[in-house]
């Protein structure tokens, strides 16, 4: 089709081809074709309502696309349900905190670890006998700086700590693809670095594919290898950070002032 031909046995980790979804005639994501390579961090930016979260939902499967396809390492996964995509290595943290409120913080993380373990469906063994899962959960608990809240219910955490837990759960899945949706939104200034450190840590592993929706320009500058700009569901710019950030169209789209006609002419 329209995308560049793949060199033999090289596939992008994630590829979307002509991905679109409409809600009652309104195209929230419109014909988005993008490839995301191993070991890269792509920042996805755009004004509120641009379709960033919706694009994530199409990749991780919470939404079914109206048209277009999603590929993981060259394998089409468009029809896969959410759980299967997660098992294939697509991990997702949510913009709106999405936890198990009446389970403990440790349990929230442990469940993520368990999901990827062979013993995940064991029903006659005690959960506490699976020490390996607990040790691993505690590791991520510490990374997120939440060890003192291990036994507290997730619902009792402050907003900032819930955001950290959200990220810790994603980390605990140890996926191949990490999708962070505004991970630092609403956090206090002193809490932000711990989340950024977690993202940097993933990035430094070198073989992960990271998609990051983020509004803070300094964060994007320090982390992103590439920026994709969405506006009204369409990709309006895509390239390395310096070029993209310098372009007028992006400044306007990013600041939410882009008008449909301007975007249209810029294409």
């Amino acid at each position, binding site marked *: 089709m329209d995308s560049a031909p793949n060199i033999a046995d090289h596939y992008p980790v994630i590829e979307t081809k002509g991905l679109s979804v409409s809600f009652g005639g309104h195209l929230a994501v419109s014909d988005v074709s993008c490839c995301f390579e191993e070991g890269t961090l792509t920042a996805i930016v755009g004004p509120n309502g641009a379709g960033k979260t919706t694009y994530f939902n199409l990749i991780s499967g919470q939404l079914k696309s109206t048209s277009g396809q999603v590929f993981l390492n060259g394998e089409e996964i468009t029809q896969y349900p959410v759980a299967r995509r997660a098992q294939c290595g697509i991990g997702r943290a949510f913009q709106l905190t999405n936890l198990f409120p009446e389970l403990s913080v440790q349990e929230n993380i442990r469940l993520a670890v368990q999901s990827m373990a062979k013993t995940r469906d064991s029903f006659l063994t*005690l959960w506490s006998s699976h020490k390996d899962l607990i040790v691993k959960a505690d590791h991520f608990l510490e990374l997120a700086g939440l060890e003192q809240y291990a036994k507290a219910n997730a619902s009792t955490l402050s907003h900032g700590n819930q955001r950290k837990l959200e990220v810790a759960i994603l980390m605990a899945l140890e996926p191949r693809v990490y999708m962070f949706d505004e991970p630092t939104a609403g956090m206090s200034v002193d809490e932000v670095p711990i989340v950024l450190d977690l993202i940097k840590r993933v990035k430094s592993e070198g073989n992960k594919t990271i998609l990051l929706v983020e509004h803070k320009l300094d964060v994007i500058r320090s982390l992103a290898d590439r920026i994709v700009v969405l506006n009204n569901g369409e990709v309006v710019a895509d390239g390395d950070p310096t070029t993209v950030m310098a372009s007028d169209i992006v400044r306007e789209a990013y600041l939410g002032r882009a008008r449909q006609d301007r975007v249209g002419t810029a294409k």
Partner: protein
Amino acid sequence: MISSLLSEDLPRSRIVAFTLILLLMAMLAAPVAIGGLTIMSVFVKIAIFVVLVGSFDLLLGYTGMISFAHTMYFGIGAYGTGIALKSMGASWEAIAIGFLAGAFLSFVIAVAVGLFSMRTKTIFFAMITLAVANAFAVLVNQFYTITGGHDGLIFQIPRVLKPAFVIIPRDVFGVPINGTTLSYYAILLICGLLFLLMLRIVNSPFGRVLQAIRENELRAEALGFNVLRHRVVVSCIAAVLACVAGALNALWLRFVGPEVTLDLQVMLDVLLIVVIGGMGTLYGAIIGAGVFVFAETYLQGAIAYIAPMIAEVPVVSVVIHPDRWVFWLGILFVVSVYYFPEGIVGRLRNRAAELANIKK
């Protein structure tokens, strides 16, 4: 040792623990210490309700699923056993075949209902289970040549389980130890083991996923858990457990009929017990069943005892009348739900946790 038997899920409240120990000792001692069919029937009913309500709680309290078909599985177990005993005669093979056929049927229906309805909303699943349970009750009534219709079936059980099978004659303890005593202890043992099994299931990795599904189905899915499969599996487990409870009930009563198994009333009793005891706490099934069965058995008697003393007082004598015991049970229910929405066990556990916090 005890902790691992209880799957590390201890009562976590002294009052609950104490009540449980008391109840267990009373159950074990009753046939010899008190004797008589009445007290044994009360305890057997509690034990069977523990399995029936506990397995229902696996769905409602642990997974967050509302099923109205639970007593249908209870009925299938009872009818399977009863019909086999009636048609094949009082043999162990009949019990085994009847029960296994019932368990298989329960399993199949649970899978079918689950796959058919669980992709959609909880309420749709609830409606389907209600419809299926209703249809089943109608079928049982229609096939009265096999099921006995409204009247139900009376059947024989193996001699070893009957009162005529004397083990220790009456003159030793003052109460007879016979086949009935044997079935009593056998039922208690089986129910006890099944309770421990359920405790294990909810505290296993699988059980934790059920709670995750209850808490946040979409997130569980996003973590990579197949929610539909977990729901179908837990409905099958619950269905088969209810089926065992039904078979035990049939063996104890030597009778099976719609009122004691399939009737919506039984389903309401189960709901009542799970709510009184505390959803999502298996111990709640024991406490709830205890409270309910004792109330059902003795409330009527207690009111009958008081009634003559106040026969002269207007209004009050109308309200406190033996025929009104269901009304009082209803009041008890409303009051307990209002003051302890988390159930007796939930409430006592929270209280114990608060006390522990204060001490710290």
